[in-house]
Structures are given as C-alpha cells and as structure tokens.
C-alpha cells in the first residue's frame, strides 16, 4: 500500500485514464468544457442583453437562436458553463475537504470524538437535503455563494462517512501502528501515512461530488431557489420554462443546456470509471448512486457496507 504513494500516484492516474477508453472519452469531454468555461465567455456577447427578436430558431446571426426575451442562447449557455462548472468543482472540492476533515478526525481519534462526529454525520445524512437547502437559502440573499454553501452543508456527510470508514481500516494497518508507536504527531501520521493511501479515493470522491453538485444546483435553480438574475445552466432552464419554451416548441432554449449538463455528468462519470482499478471497488456503488440521486434532488446515500464491517 505504502509503496505506491505520492510520487507515482499522478502517473498512475494518467495511465489509468489512458488505458481505459471510457475514461479517455470522459477526460476529453471535461477538457473541452473547461476550455469553454475559461475562454468561451470572451467570445460571446452579454448574455443578459436582448439582441434580437424573441424565440427565434437557430440562424447564422444567432447560432443557437434567441430566448423568450431575445437574448442569445449561445451566449447564455457559454457563460452558464463557466458559472455552473465553477460552482460544481468548488463545491465538489469543498464538500470532500469538509468530509475528509471530519471523517478522518473521527476515524483516526476514535473514542468519544468518533462517537460525537459519527452522530453528527449520521444526523446530516438523515435530514432531507432539499428542505434544508430551502431553509438556508431563505436566510441569505440568493446567489452562487449561497447555493454553494447550501450544497456543501447538505453534501459533506456522505464523504465524511466513507472517509471515516477508510481511515478506520487504514488505522489498523501495521505501518500506521508503527508510526503511532514511534511517537509521531497525529497531524504527521494523518498527512504522511494515512492521506496518501486515500488519494485516489479522494479524487474519485471529488469527481462524484462535482456531479452531485452540478445536478443538485441545476435542480434547485430550476425550482427558482437560486438567483435567477445570474446566468447559469439552472437559471437558463428556469427561464426557458418560464417563457413556456416547451409550449412554443422552442427546443433551442432548453436542449443545448440540457445536453451540456448531461455531457458534463457523463464525462465525469466516465472519467471516474478510469479510477476503478485503483480504488476500492466496494465503495463504487455508493459513489455512482450518489451522483444519480443527487441529480434527482435526493439526498446522498448514507449507508455503506464498509462502515458496518469496519465497525
């Protein structure tokens, strides 16, 4: 376990992605979207500005047509990509960071620390995510930051649970026991001995959490719980619905955005499948599930057999 730690992990991933056709496809899709998110907005106009007759089908002047308010759909999709991916990835990373902090602390120290933190984790797993999100959103003015915060609060516990379980099992290994006996500081043991064994799991979790974050964000915004004044994929769909796009047959106002969301989710899931070889297969079930349930507005999955066994 310890032999293939830091210096080789990066190359293992690259190798894993390259080896697996699906992962390669996923990486390419995500790469393209990242490129769009970074440079795309410089090439399109102001997505708020009404530029033409409302609800025009795609044409040469507006490649993806116009919205119910005469805004350029292409501009909205591109600018929305930046915002949605930014929220998605940031939330994905923060969710796992919070989860790791609490989960690893609980797993490493055990005893009453573990009891208290486990209870906290499980309570957050049990509380339905959507109402919690609405309640939190009600305190704060709606916007990307609020939305991100909501997603972190409702999403961290699952990661914490898995990482706690993983820490528990690593903690029992000989090399960790040896480090404890030699009197190394807890921080050092965690960062030098335990974390490296979990890097691949954490990366997989970040990807999974990003899928969850994007799905849940789009769902909340579609319900009108986000800031509908900003341009994101979720608000694009909200406005499309608001302008009766479906009734008018204005497919161009919602198909491109839906397709983008699906492609990013698909790309991330495929990318993750490349890590399957180096992550614990037992954990995979939950990750996949979680991404799916997240997209449905369901709270993440709490239970894992690993926990049971480790307990």
């Amino acid at each position: 376990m310890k032999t293939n730690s830091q210096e080789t992990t990066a190359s293992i991933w690259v190798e894993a992605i390259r080896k697996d056709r699906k992962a390669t496809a996923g990486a390419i899709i995500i790469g393209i979207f990242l490129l769009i998110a970074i440079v795309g907005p410089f090439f399109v106009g102001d997505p708020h500005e009404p530029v033409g007759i409302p609800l025009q089908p795609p044409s040469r002047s507006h490649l993806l047509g116009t919205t119910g308010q005469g805004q350029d759909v292409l501009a909205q999709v591109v600018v929305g990509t930046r915002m949605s991916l930014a929220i998605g990835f940031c939330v994905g990373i923060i969710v796992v960071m919070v989860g790791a902090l609490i989960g690893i602390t609980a797993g490493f120290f055990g005893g009453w620390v573990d009891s208290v933190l486990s209870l906290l984790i499980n309570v957050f797993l049990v509380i339905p995510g959507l109402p919690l999100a609405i309640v939190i959103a009600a305190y704060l003015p709606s916007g990307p930051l609020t939305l991100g915060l909501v997603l972190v609060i409702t999403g961290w516990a699952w990661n914490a649970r898995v990482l706690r379980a993983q820490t528990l099992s690593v903690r029992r290994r000989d090399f960790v026991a040896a480090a404890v006996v030699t009197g190394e500081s807890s921080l050092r043991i965690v960062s030098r001995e335990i974390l490296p064994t979990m890097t691949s799991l954490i990366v997989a979790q970040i990807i999974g959490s990003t899928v969850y974050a994007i799905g849940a964000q789009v769902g909340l915004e579609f319900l009108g719980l986000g800031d509908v004044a900003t341009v994101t994929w979720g608000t694009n769909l909200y406005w499309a619905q608001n302008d009766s796009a479906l009734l008018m047959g204005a497919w161009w106002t919602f198909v491109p955005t839906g397709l983008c969301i699906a492609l990013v989710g698909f790309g991330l899931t495929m990318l993750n499948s490349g890590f399957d070889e180096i992550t614990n297969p037992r954990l995979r079930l939950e990750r996949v599930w979680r991404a799916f349930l997240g997209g449905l507005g369901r709270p993440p999955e709490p239970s894992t057999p690993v926990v049971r066994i480790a307990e």
Partner: protein
Amino acid sequence: MKGRARLWVASIFSLLILALLACSDHTQVMPEGVLVVSQEQQASWIRNFNPLTTAAAARWPTLAGIYEPLFVYNSVKAEYVPWLGLSYRWLSGNQVLRVETRDSVLWSDGKPFSAKDVTFTFKLMKQFPALDRRGVWNFLADVITVDSNTVDFHFSRIYIPGFDEIAAQPIVPEHIWSKIEDPVTYPNENPVATGPFTEVRMFKNQVFELGRNPHYWQKGLPKIEALRFPALPSNDRANLALVFDEIDWAGNFVPAIDRVYVRRDPEHHHYWFPLTGSTIFLYANTTRKPFDDVRVRKALSMAIDRQFLIDVALFGYSRPSDPSALSDAYASWPKIEVSEQENWVRYNPEAARRMLDEAGLVLDSEGRRHLPDGSPLEFEIITVSGWSDWVRACQVIARTYTELGLKTSVRTYDFSAWFQNVLEGNFDLALGWSYEGPTPYVFYRWLMASETVKPVGEATTGNWHRYGSPRADDVLKAFEKEADPVKQRDLSLRLQRIFFEEAPAIPLYPNPSWAEYNARRFVGFPSAENPYADPSPNKFDRGECLLVLTSLRPR
C-alpha cells in the same frame, strides 16, 4: 438461464399491456356542463370550505361561488351590485349604515336567509378577531337587527370607506354556525350557503367538484351544472393544461399568450387582461439618503423606460402608469392634468440627469455619482426570486440606474425573507404592489398617510417606503367623512395632485387582471367587447367572480 428468459417474457408482456392501456383515450373527456377552473396552484386539495377564516382566503370558490357578500363590487363598471343586500343608506350624520337585505333568499338546506344571519356573522367576527380579516371592528361599534330585512351598522367614528369592507363580507347561516364551537378551525366540509354552487359533488385530493345550489335565489341560475377544480402544482403545468383544452377558465400568467394560447385555436381560445389589478411601484426607502429628496425620486422615475420594461418583463400586457398612478379600476374617476414639462411619470433621461445634478448628486470622472458629502452611491434593489416578471423588471431598472451613474444591483430573496425586509424598511429600492379599494382612498392612504408610517425595524403592512404627507392627511381625513360621490371626486383630484407633487413612490404600471377562457364548451365570459365584469377568477376577494359564474352558460 431459464429465469432470465422468464423475466424477459414477463417484462415484455407487461409492457404490451401498458401499451394497450396507453392506446385508450387520453384526451380527458369533461362531463357535460362542468366548468373546469384553474385559479390557485396546489399540489393537492384539502377539504375546507370555511369562508370566514383568513387562512382559507386561498380557497377561491368558498369566497365567490359558495358564500356570498351583501354587495358585489364590479371593478370594471365601478359600481356596487346589490346581492344579498338590496340597498344601503347612511343615517344619523353618517354614523349608522342601514342595509336592506334581500327577501326570498334560501340557504342551500332550504331554510330562509334573513337580516339576522348578517348580524350574526358580524357578531361572530367580533367574538373571534381571527375571522375579522377586513378589520371591520376597528370602526364598528355595534350591529343591530332592525327587522328581518334590515340591519343597522353603528360606527364608532364616521368612516365612509368602511362600507366597502362591510359590503364584501361573506355571510354565513346562523342556524349552522351558532352551533360551531371554534369557527376559526372549523373545516366546514359540507357548506350550507346562499351561493350558486354549494353542493360538494366529489372531493379527492387531485380534483373536486361543486354542484348547483338547489335553492339558489336567482331563479334559473346558474346555467352551468358544476365547477371542477383540478389540482395543478405549478403555473407552467396549469398553462399546459389550459393550452390543451383541459381548462375552461383560468387566471394564470401565460407568457406570450398570443403565440402560446390564442394561435392554437383562435376561434375558442381567448383572453382579456383588463388593467384593473394593483399598481406596481418602485418603492424607494425615504428614510435613506438620497431618497428623502423628492428631486431624486422624480429623477429615478424619469430614468425608467416603462414601455420597454413592460415589454421585457410583462410581454407587453400593461401600459405605463400615468401621473395619478391609478389603475384602470378607477377609470370612472377624473384624473389630474399635468404639463409635459413637469410630468415625472414618463421616460425622460435628460431631465432625469439634470434633476440628479440639481439634487447635488454629481458625476465624477469615472461616470459615477456621489452624495454631496462625497460618499459614492450604490443601491440594492430587492425582489423575490421566484417572481420572474419582477426579477426582469428589476434587471431593467438596475441597468438603467447604473448607466445614470448610480450603481445598482439586483438581489433576490425567497419571498418571506424579501417581505420581511420590505415590511421592516430594510431596503434601498424594492418593487411592490399597491392596496386597492373602490375609491382611491385606500390606494393613497397606504402611499402617504402619516398614520401608516412606522419606524424602520418595525413591520408595517403598507407604506414600506415610509412616507408621510401632512397635506395628504387632511384630505384623507375629509375623505373618510365624505359620502357624496361628487365631492369624493374632488378629494381624489386633490390627493392625486399631492401625490404628483410629492412623489412618495415611483409608479411603474398597473397590473393586469389575468383571465384566459376557452369558449369551446361555455360562452358568456366577459371580454373587451362585452365588459360586463372583471373576467379574472382571481377576483374572488370581493365576490366579483359571482357576476361571471351567474352569466356563463354551456354552448
């Protein structure tokens, strides 16, 4: 792999069954003579037909169909229509209101209606303040039955506008409600009432139906058999049902209605959006600088291109407000004349800039304006995240102001959070509605009466911008005591003049009264050609829908 094969066969088989089922008829056939109405959006219905409890305000048919008021106010014709009440007059120097009630009205259980039921209803509201949603006991001293056809309302002070609150009160039968222990929480599952539709023919959580009152006092009416209310959880979903002929009468916001609805079936799909709703204002918090300066408020008003805003936010369904700020519900009231020069309720960006300069909000080299003391100006305009028309309007306004050098951003809140901020005066700029009555009294009272001003931090239901005008106070006081319609018109003109000079708030547009109807199965809806009443099912609060319900007939 026998098991697998069996599974496949089973699943294919069940799919076939479903496909067969699916091939049956799915255009829902409506029973003859049943009018399908969509007014409020609910995921499922709860059986409650209590007309008195405030919370049940949502249950539309309870207030306009099952129970009836003394007088129905027709906001299109601006007149009271005698209903359970036949006539009224003021006695004892306008201290007493005497109402003659209609003879030969029966409750739906066959018992006769009398003035005693009216007295009982009002007494009940005194006993249970939770039922007094119009606050009539703020100005009433007593209600006395004179004889079986006459009720006297004794006022504690002269308050002519109080008539409207009394007129609109739904009346309940004494012989039923006197036996009810707690009328506030009474669900009244099988209502006994005087309205045209009183019989609950079916009640399921996804749909309910109200049948005709067998003893309705208007002989031969209603012509329709029953009302049906499907539960539709969202506006969008209700619109789909409307467009596909599943709903006959609706009061929803339909975007681009000519394309979405009318064009599908121009012969039967109709709408009429008379501008009789409340006026939508941009409220500037006058307790904050620089909004305390009337010149700034006028400048902010002139900066807004209202027509553009209405096109963008409201699909062009309204018109820009005029200097009186009154909606078309007051069409019969005279309006003040103002010169183009001094009119601040119109688009005039140059004048807006000039006026801001005059107010001392000078432009710096970067194109931003400052207060005279040098602090930069930055506003927030707050609105509700789900209300798309307002969000769009706010976006237009924010962009306009930013171009003027007043950096403005839009903040959206969930509605209770938004409302809390507005009530407590915790905002710079906010969109809001006006309060309406049959005379402009209520309208102007909540815009500029000193008594409605509360300090910042204390919640107030109206006058969120916190503006009190001593001049207006005098006129409003006179209005309360004036029963003569001609003199009321003079007072209205004076109020309009004060509003125009002091600019307490910035009127944007009168809200349309949403009404879509499908003439495939029913005829007799009000329309622009036949404007006999307000066409919207949303006008339940004062029983106005009764006018429509008793005029409709099956094709």
